[in-house]
């Protein structure tokens, strides 16, 4: 995006700082990241992003289309990405469930795209207007087969904007779908939101092939490679299939060797970059004996609780997961060697608690503080749970 393009977008977005909802900030982040295609289907509490994109896209020279369902929405987004555009859709739990097959297709075909899931309380239709953190595992494991993708979790309206930009950058860089997991609370609340200036914007564009068509290898390049994307209309005659395919993109469905090579590369390109994908916020961890590990809206309450305990001279630290997948295992393992116990408050009955336990591998206690029903934890609940953890004895 050049300065002129940026100025035109700034005109559409209006004053900075803005006072907008998280859902709207997601749309702002998208247009600033260069997203020029949005396909979606209305669903509470994600609809406001679609509404914003419907208003913004004509002025950006992009395209907005309302599809017949969420399956079609993610399909259109993947199609648009192969037509050369940065593309996004937004949804909530029921729609996210419907998208899973095509999210797997995007992983298998290495299609950059961004999916914002404004989580609501489930299962099924659940509590449509209430926030939850019930899709943390589905984001990672929802589609069938082996794959890796990237998921980011904002805890403020500002971070909705910032992380959607980052989601596009990572998606273009690694050619994977990137999922932004907000929730009904972050999505619907309004906060002061600073729109980044032109020289603060760092945008990543997908690499395209520079070799002649005959020597272009669309799905190869080595064990953890991200191949350049010869998208449609460039003349590379790329054949894209969800079937197990060779480096040339042609079906090889009966070959254990080709399947292992392909799927291993799809996973390794993310796994080997996982250190560079760590996004965590740490506070009060110096000399901490216990820590609260949280993410999303819950982390704001957790910070309040940690500060309360610090005022009472308790050695409590705070770690917030911003990048959820790939999971920052090494950092959690490091924390477990420092502290005696970790408390994990989250708005589900036990999701991120599990990879944390796996990461710390018994090196410290891990206590869970689940809460469902659409209500956010209170600071008092977290304070009490930490005190219980501190008073508990190691078996």
């Amino acid at each position, binding site marked *: 995006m050049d300065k002129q393009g940026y100025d*035109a977008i700034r*005109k559409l977005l209006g004053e900075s700082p803005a006072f907008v909802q998280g859902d709207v900030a997601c749309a702002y982040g998208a247009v600033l990241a260069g997203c*020029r*295609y949005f*396909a979606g289907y209305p669903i509470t509490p994600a609809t406001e992003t679609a509404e914003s994109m419907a208003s913004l896209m*004509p*002025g950006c*020279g992009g*395209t907005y*289309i309302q*599809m*017949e*369902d969420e*399956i*079609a929405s993610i*399909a*259109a*987004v*993947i*199609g*648009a*990405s*192969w*037509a*050369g*555009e940065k*593309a996004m859709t937004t949804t909530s739990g029921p729609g996210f469930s419907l998208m899973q*097959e*095509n999210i797997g*297709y995007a992983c298998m075909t290495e299609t950059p795209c961004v999916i914002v899931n404004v989580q609501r309380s489930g299962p099924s239709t659940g509590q449509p207007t209430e926030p939850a953190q019930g899709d943390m595992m589905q984001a990672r494991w929802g589609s069938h087969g082996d794959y890796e993708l990237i998921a980011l979790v904002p805890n403020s309206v500002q971070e909705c904007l910032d992380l959607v930009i980052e989601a596009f950058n990572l998606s273009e860089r690694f050619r994977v779908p990137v999922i932004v997991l907000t929730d009904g609370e972050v999505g619907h609340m309004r906060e002061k939101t600073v729109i980044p200036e032109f020289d603060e914007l760092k945008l990543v564009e997908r690499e395209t092939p520079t070799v002649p068509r005959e020597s272009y290898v669309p799905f190869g390049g080595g064990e953890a490679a991200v191949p350049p994307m010869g998208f*449609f*209309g460039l*003349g*590379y*005659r*790329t*054949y*894209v*299939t*969800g*079937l197990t395919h060779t480096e*040339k993109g*042609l*079906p090889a469905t009966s070959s254990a060797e080709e399947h292992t090579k392909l799927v291993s590369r799809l996973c390794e390109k993310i796994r080997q970059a996982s250190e560079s994908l760590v996004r965590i916020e740490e506070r009060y961890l110096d000399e901490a004996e216990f820590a609260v590990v949280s993410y999303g809206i819950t982390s704001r309450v957790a910070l309040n609780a940690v500060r309360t305990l610090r005022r009472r001279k308790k050695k409590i630290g705070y770690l917030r997961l911003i990048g959820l997948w790939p999971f920052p295992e090494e950092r959690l393992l490091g924390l477990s060697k420092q502290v005696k116990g970790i408390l994990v408050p989250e708005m589900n009955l036990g999701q991120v608690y599990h990879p944390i336990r796996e990461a710390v591998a018994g090196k410290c206690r891990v206590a869970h503080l689940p809460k469902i029903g659409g209500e956010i934890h209170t600071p008092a609940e977290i304070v009490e749970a930490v005190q219980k953890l501190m008073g508990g004895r190691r078996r």
Partner: protein
Amino acid sequence: MFNKAERIREYLRSEMLPSIFCSGCGNGNVLNYTLRAIDELRIDIDKVVFISGIGCSSRLPGYIDADGLHTTHGRAIAFATGVKTANPDLTVIIFTGDGDCAGIGGNHLIHAARRNVDLTVIEMNNYNYGMTGGQLSPTTPVEGRTTTSPFGNLEEPFDLAALVVGAGAPFVARWPVGYPYETVDTIKRGIEKKGFSFIEILTPCPTGYSPESGLKGNRQIWDWYKRNTLLASKYRQLSDEERADEDRMLIGVLQDVEKREFTDEWAKLVAQFAASRE
């Protein structure tokens, strides 16, 4: 100089051949007709994208040396909508089957017909799920015997051409696979049509059809097409009483009207915004 057949072969992705198609299958013919239409229209193949779902007919894009998107089951039209609306300069052709586009993908089919994005859908109707071994599809005739209707089909089938006309598609046609010249001409018209075009081609599935269906063998299938179809141009000449007695499937171009097309309308909207900035 090449003769025509040799020139058509130039469009093929030779390393993918031979095809997976059974002897007597009509899908190869449809590929041939489509490539001839593109060749006669002199479209730059590097600006054509072939998109498909899952099933035998959906394997066609793999045989063409061009951009291709072999997608998930039933979703080809939805993916194609994304490709075309993101870059309207591309010609987008969808290969699909009766199970793919009318079974699992029926919702996308009717909405694409209503929305009227400039896509050309070539649907190969073989009245069954061929790739999985001959199961009941949404177009299997009443009493049709398949592996999942062993005692005869109790459901009413879709007339897909009528369905898509009803959903608003501006160009709809149907041909049995044995009408090569008419089909090539119709595919050309479908590609040239600014809007959603739906071309159904009746293709045999010699492997999937059971002996009990009465359609085992190409002779039987082609005879069945003959007995059960009537040229739309002939139908139009019939009296009202004759039409009332007519229950054969109409073939030929069944709908050809002009309608507002989505990518055109969207481009106008974008142009309005651009003009208001100046």
